[in-house]
């Protein structure tokens, strides 16, 4: 029996800690949100019903539970506003991630091939802008892109354009802001996989008759796929829930789901619908995470 007890007591506590963290700071709040999503809106404090009486005994609890309804989920599935918001969010996340990958891969590749002492400096250059507050940087973009902003002034001075171009409040401005903000999240995992790649593999490929370009496709790209997956997920998931960048840089005609949620919560004071939006978004974003998990587990099994 004794030999089966692998973990000492401190080790067991350490192993429990992350689960405790997850329960306290994710599962319990998520339980609240889920509960509110099953409630209905009222003008009251708090602005939803039922409020569960956890200390009123079994009957009181059952009476409360009986009032739960899935009406809000039905609403989300049938109302265009929500469906289009979700679609817009997923589209924006997908397009942004694709752009980030196309720009990020060559940059990460170039960084990984720098001499060792330059790699740290290149890494600094990627990360340094993030020492400034995110909001300030987005406002800086507003400054650059607005009607009489830096970009228009420059282009007018160079006679490239004759009158100011409306850059701000467009999808392009939003994509620019997203790509700019999430760049390091794409670069860092890509750089990590590319820089630890064994250069003798490329020599072996060359030795076996492979030109450099072909070796890149046949060796470098497949071996960097875990980094691609990690970078894509690190970008895709938060971008899908992004609120600030589309709110500040994009036009107001189409909303991402984060904006819709904000609207429901603060403008309409409809907590149950806002909570329902959050629950559905979480479920939607769980799908790519599970796929990634699956891939990683398969790699671990092989390794």
């Amino acid at each position: 029996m004794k030999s089966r007890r692998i973990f000492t007591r401190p080790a067991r506590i350490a192993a429990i800690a992350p689960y405790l963290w997850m329960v306290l700071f994710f599962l319990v709040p998520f339980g609240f949100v889920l509960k509110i999503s099953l409630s209905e809106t009222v003008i009251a404090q708090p602005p939803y019903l039922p409020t569960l009486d956890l200390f009123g005994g079994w009957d009181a609890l059952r009476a409360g539970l009986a009032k739960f309804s899935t009406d809000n989920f039905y609403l989300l599935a049938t109302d265009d506003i929500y469906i289009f918001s979700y679609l817009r969010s997923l589209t924006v996340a997908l397009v942004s991630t694709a752009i980030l990958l196309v720009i990020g891969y060559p940059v990460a590749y170039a960084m990984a091939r720098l001499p060792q002492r330059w790699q740290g400096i290149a890494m600094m250059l990627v990360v340094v802008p993030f020492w400034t507050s995110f909001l300030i940087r987005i406002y800086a973009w507003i400054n650059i892109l607005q009607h009489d902003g830096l970009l228009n002034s420059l282009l007018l001075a160079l006679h490239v354009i004759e009158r100011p171009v409306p850059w701000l409040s467009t999808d392009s401005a939003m994509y620019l802001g997203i790509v700019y903000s999430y760049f390091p999240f794409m670069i860092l995992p890509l750089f990590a996989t590319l820089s630890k790649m064994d250069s003798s593999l490329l020599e072996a490929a060359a030795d076996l008759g492979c030109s450099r370009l072909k070796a890149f496709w046949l060796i470098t790209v497949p071996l960097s796929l875990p980094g691609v997956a990690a970078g894509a997920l690190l970008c895709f998931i938060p971008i899908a829930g992004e609120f600030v960048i589309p709110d500040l840089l994009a036009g107001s005609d189409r909303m991402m789901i984060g904006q819709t949620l904000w609207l429901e919560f603060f403008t309409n004071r409809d907590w149950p619908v806002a909570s329902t939006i959050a629950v559905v978004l979480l479920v939607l974003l769980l799908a790519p995470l599970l796929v990634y998990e699956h891939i990683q587990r398969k790699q671990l099994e092989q390794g």
Partner: protein
Amino acid sequence: MVAVARLDNAPSDAKSMAFWLGTRLHNEPSGGVRDQMQGGFSAQPGHAERSQSAPLMRIESVGKRFGGFVAVDGVSLEIGVGEFFALLGPSGCGKTTLLRMLAGFETPDEGGIWLDGKNIADVPPHLRPVNMMFQNYALFPHLSVEGNIAFGLKQAGMPKDEIAARVAEMVALVRLQGLERRKPDQLSGGQRQRVALARALARRPRLLLLDEPLAALDKKLRAETQAELVEVQRRLGMSFIIVTHDQEEAMTLADRIGVMNKGQLVQVAAPRALYEQPDTRWIAGFVGDINLFEGQVMSQGDGFVSVATQAAGLLRVAGGVEAGKSVCIAVRPEKLSLSHGLSSHDNNAQPGEVLDADYLGGLTRYRVKLAGGDVVQVVRANAAGNDIPFAAGQQVMVSFAPEDAVVLTQ
């Protein structure tokens, strides 16, 4: 996008294939390309026949510097068809750099490398009919055993069914049947080593380069693999150049050994000649153990010289060096005999005292302090019915026959 990349590279691959086929045609022993491409490995002519033909590779005054460091310094060498050649030297002697120049990963700063009469010094690695087996094997981790072996064949544009046949043949050659679909990280070190060998051999290169191929294996597996390497090389009749720092490995494997030191090729000889007739004191000490006696030639004649040494008095040794020159007498530990009294052929006999005796299983190694003060090493086989072993503290006579020593002038 992969398809685009392939199209881009079609011409260079075609060139590579043509070069490969061209050189195959040039020195084809029998049957021609068709046989070679379709059938199994055809019988190769004997060694004698091969060694008479023109050399497969000629390396002429090749030099390579890295900044101020001279890695390879004016190396000239010829490698015969079907020869197993070993580059032996301590780490940092330039042997790996030389090998990498033969593979095309480094370009020589000076000199030329001819393969079948073509100067390939500036030909990039993917267009050379030469393959290399890497020290860390450099197997592609995302490809199976089959995928790794087929990699070079796909690059050469070989038809699918022929690739399958060749891969099966290679798998059988290195005895990896049943493991075709495994990934490299699901294999043992020895199995990985064989995949690397099969992958490098699959294209049937004119010349296979092996960079410390057995360094990662344990001693027993290494001995087995050495025997397999020699067998594969004989069977395929390819030329092999192996880089190693292990002199025993070089001697086991190679027809000839080139010893490198500080970027220079200091001696090229068959294993036996290298051991028995080293050119310099450094080589004598690097290849095996040796006892050195510094001295001056007193006289010479009849193929013998008499050398006055500080350590062992006047020694008579086979050789021809003019009187007055400073020389060094080199005697291998196993060429020294120990006896209790005066030995029957008391040539070069010196009294001494046994300092210690190390029993090594098959051998016993003695350290004997000579009357002059120098300590020599003596190795005796622990043969059946062996005479009384010598113990520490015993007075003995150390002697060697004049033919068993070498006179070194460098």
